[in-house]
């Protein structure tokens, strides 16, 4: 690993100053689970690294009236252990549980997962269906973006060189919806997703979907919403036929590629199956 200069500010303002001063030259370290690997094998050779880990203002998890706010430094393990998130957004907890192993989850952060902008990042689809917003800050001021506007493409976000992700917030889903996170990896643990899906759906008294949000990862340059399938499901009960039709529809809404982890065809075909698998699990939990 090449020598580099490390800055470890404790105040957000100081961090933003540093970013402005080293505009475009700095790599940002949150959990380090990706950055350190890339630095070690020379893919990334930064002159300066901004270590965020001592900034307490980026490390919070709270509920304000109806909104849940997550600081970017919250680790996957902290998500798993949060009573609030277990109560309100089990799908985010499920997603974080499938990320890496214990060591990675202890270090890796929600903010890091977002800023890495991997199309396969497991924490991202849940935040899509939760209609999360990202707060970005720089010396120039703050801006708030819906999560889908945060990503440009694989590995690319809209963050300006002097900007930091400082918060993620979403409305607490009310009333409690049907929700799940499903993933297909090459093995049961420590595997990057071939396809993943987050689902949030509210039903009426008769069990018909009133509102549905579906987001899929690893099947397009960024996480995508399956909007046509969402529309199709509204007003319908999740019967076997409906789920089948919805699954088929999802396959037409994704644009996966083939890579080292899977084939284009497989990703497309099983993306719909995640809906079936996830809903079956939800129904089992309801009845069992």
């Amino acid at each position, binding site marked *: 690993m090449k020598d580099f200069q490390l800055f470890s500010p404790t105040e957000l303002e100081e961090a933003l100053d540093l970013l402005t001063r080293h505009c475009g030259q700095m790599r940002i370290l949150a959990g380090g689970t990706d950055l350190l690997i890339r630095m070690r094998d020379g893919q990334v050779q930064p002159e300066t690294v901004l270590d965020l880990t001592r900034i307490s203002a980026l490390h919070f998890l709270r509920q304000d009236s109806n909104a849940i706010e997550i600081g970017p430094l919250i680790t996957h393990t902290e998500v798993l252990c949060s009573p609030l998130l277990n109560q309100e957004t089990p799908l985010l907890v499920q997603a974080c549980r499938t990320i890496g192993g214990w060591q990675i989850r202890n270090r890796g952060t929600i903010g890091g997962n977002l800023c890495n902008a991997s199309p396969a990042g497991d924490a991202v689809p849940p935040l899509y269906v939760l209609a999360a917003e990202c707060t970005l800050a720089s010396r120039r001021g703050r801006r708030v973006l819906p999560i889908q506007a945060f990503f440009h493409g694989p590995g690319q976000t809209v963050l300006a060189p002097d900007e930091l992700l400082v918060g993620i917030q979403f409305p607490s889903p009310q009333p409690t919806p049907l929700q799940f996170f499903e993933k297909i990896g*090459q*093995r049961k*643990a*420590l595997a990057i997703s071939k396809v993943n899906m987050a689902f949030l759906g509210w039903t009426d008294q008769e069990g018909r979907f009133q509102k549905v949000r579906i987001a899929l990862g690893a099947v397009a340059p960024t996480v995508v919403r399956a909007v046509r399938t969402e529309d199709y499901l509204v007003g319908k009960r999740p019967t076997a036929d409906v789920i089948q039709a919805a699954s088929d529809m999802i396959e037409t809404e994704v644009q996966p590629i083939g890579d*080292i982890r899977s084939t284009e065809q*497989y990703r497309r075909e*099983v993306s719909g*199956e995640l809906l*079936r698998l996830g809903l079956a699990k939800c129904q089992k939990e309801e009845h069992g």
Partner: protein
Amino acid sequence: MKDRVIGQSVPKYDAGPKASGLLQYADDFTLPGMLYGKVFRAKVQAAILLGVRTERAEQLPGVHAVITAKDVPNNNLRARFGQSTDVGGQFEGLYRVLAEKEVRYYGEPIALVAAESPDLAEQACQLIEVDLQPLPGVFDSVGAMEPGSRQVGEKPNNIASHFKIRQGDVDQGFAQADVIVEGTYRVPYQDHAYLEPESGLAWSDDDGTINIRVSSQVIEHFREVAEILNLPHSKVRYLGTWIGGGFGRKEDITVESYLALLAWKTRKPVKLTYTRAESLLYHCKRHPFQMEYKTGATKDGKLVALQARLISDCGAYSALSPWVLLYATVNAAGPYQIPNVKVDSYAVMTNTAITSAFRGFGAPQANFAYESQIQKLAHILGLDPLEFRERNYLQTGEAFATGWIYERPIPLTELAQKAWSGLGPLGSAEGGRKLGRGVAIGMGSYGRLTFLHDTSRSYIKLELDGSAIIRCGVPDVGGGQGHILCQIVAQELGVPLERIKLHITDSQLTPLAGTTTATRQLMMSGNATLKAANELKKRLLIKAGQLLNVPIENLIITLNRIEVESSRKEGVSLVEVINRLSGEGEELFVEAQFNAPFTDIPASEVLQGQTHPDFTFGAYAAEVEVDEQTGQVQINKIVAAFDVGKALNPAIVEGQIEGGCIQGVGYALFEDMAIHNGVIQTPSFAEYLIPTAVDVPDITVILLESGSGVGPYGAKGIGEPPMVGIAPALVNAIEDAVGVRIADLPVTPEKIRMAIAQKPEGKR
């Protein structure tokens, strides 16, 4: 002493230090003033190497040496197979230390650097310049054999090796067959994926002797390293370390020739440890094979003919490929009685990563093919797969396809039935998944090829206080290769285990015990140690008999004592007997040599007669759940049943079987080494996925003890055989679940889903 230590699951003495982290592995050793080695590698698959410019690297302050082929006293070696027998012919290949005049594969070492820090060594590598004239690569092993293919190396038609089996007349055999099935099977590369990457530390003594402390399965490589350096064999010394996993990869030379060269050139200690990426991208793999099979049976379920053509990709240098191919050929027909067999096998050179030894050594490849064929025949004949196998298992006194008449028990009927019934009542599948079960059998050799005239030596010395020292040059890869020698000495001489000190792997001070490969150490060094122990035991008993005034037949050795068997209170302490012997000038040490069964070197490429000391037989049964839509497989249960001859330490034996099984699960379902035009695309364990604990169910191990092995106490070898049988058992179970049979490993969800979609009745 009746089975006091032998047959007991006493903990390996290295287990505690390993679990607590106290044990020193190769990379833990350092020396003052140590330099760091680094290998500079080709970033092209095939090229003419016009020149290497190292001046800029050499001028970097802190760089002590940059070595290229021209600096290596003997850069091109005739690669032999460890020990001394000269077998000549097609078994040999070229072992080239550093690329010379040409580059044959991506990652081929071109230069070596020694510098004062790893970073400096890395920087120096970046300053090395090469002039290359790229050549078209040869990447397809089948195509590489075709006339007109560019010759990759020194072998005409790129065929490094060719073996044959000719038994009976296959044309007549197929004419008698009522059913003939054909199939083409492909098995993939596999990485050894051990915890400890290749590592070592070398230094030069004041008399110029080169010492290499290295994680190696073969300390006898001191001979090759001496030849590389043009030094007498006596001036290169290996000091092995406890090995953090070998699985065959540390059978070939890894870092030690580079270390030796750097230490020789700089006269300073040099350390070289590969990164995981270097280990994954550039070290040898398991041979991928393409196997075309044709198997015929009569309608009453008797096999009548088998024809097979095996093609292995041996990469850019032949390494151990001829030997692996020989094993695959011997295994091609499996433990079945088939009157007509014709096998042709080829190891073919390509511009890809070198392939060489890996647990199973050619047997798992052939096993997948012959067992797949058996399963297909059983289906077509409408016979229960177990019953069909039972009608065809080789029986004691019958001949393998090589014509070797086998006189030991072959309890495959019992093993397969035990494995199958061990699955218990059928479970129920979750969430609409389909349940399936499969069984398969296999055989794996133990001990090296009998024409290599293998030997091992071991030394035991009794101390005056009744403790004991063992010296035996046995590398321990974690399978208890060292520990079991202590159990043998404890058993025979009554010395408590904790009072035995074992010295392993010093090529100059421990008697040479041969390679920890070929599942040979228990048989070879176990027998050598037992022989030495028996000689000492005789001396002890004679003296005790004199002291107690009883015939030695009436004496037994117990813990620290020699007693009269019929009257156990009568006895004498071990210490007293030892001291008497010592006082009378008797030798209290013995070095013994064990010779394996010897046969003649094959006269031609047709394999005939006995090739191995013995085989271990086993069976696997598995239950899986398959999701038809996603193609995902969950393994619910695995039962393994092996005839181990005698389990000298059942916990170690079970551990070997579980480990081999899991490595086989990875081979069958998970490990997908992507190679594009000869370049490996999986540089880390994030891309090259091996099974994790949650992917593997509990494995039930059933041990059968026929007592018929060539090893001490009738033990058979168990290191490699558990790699065999698990892949076809899983594929059979998947077929049972969802009705599709995959012929290409690994069986990924992608392949299962596609096969289901292509079924005539189709999905949906």
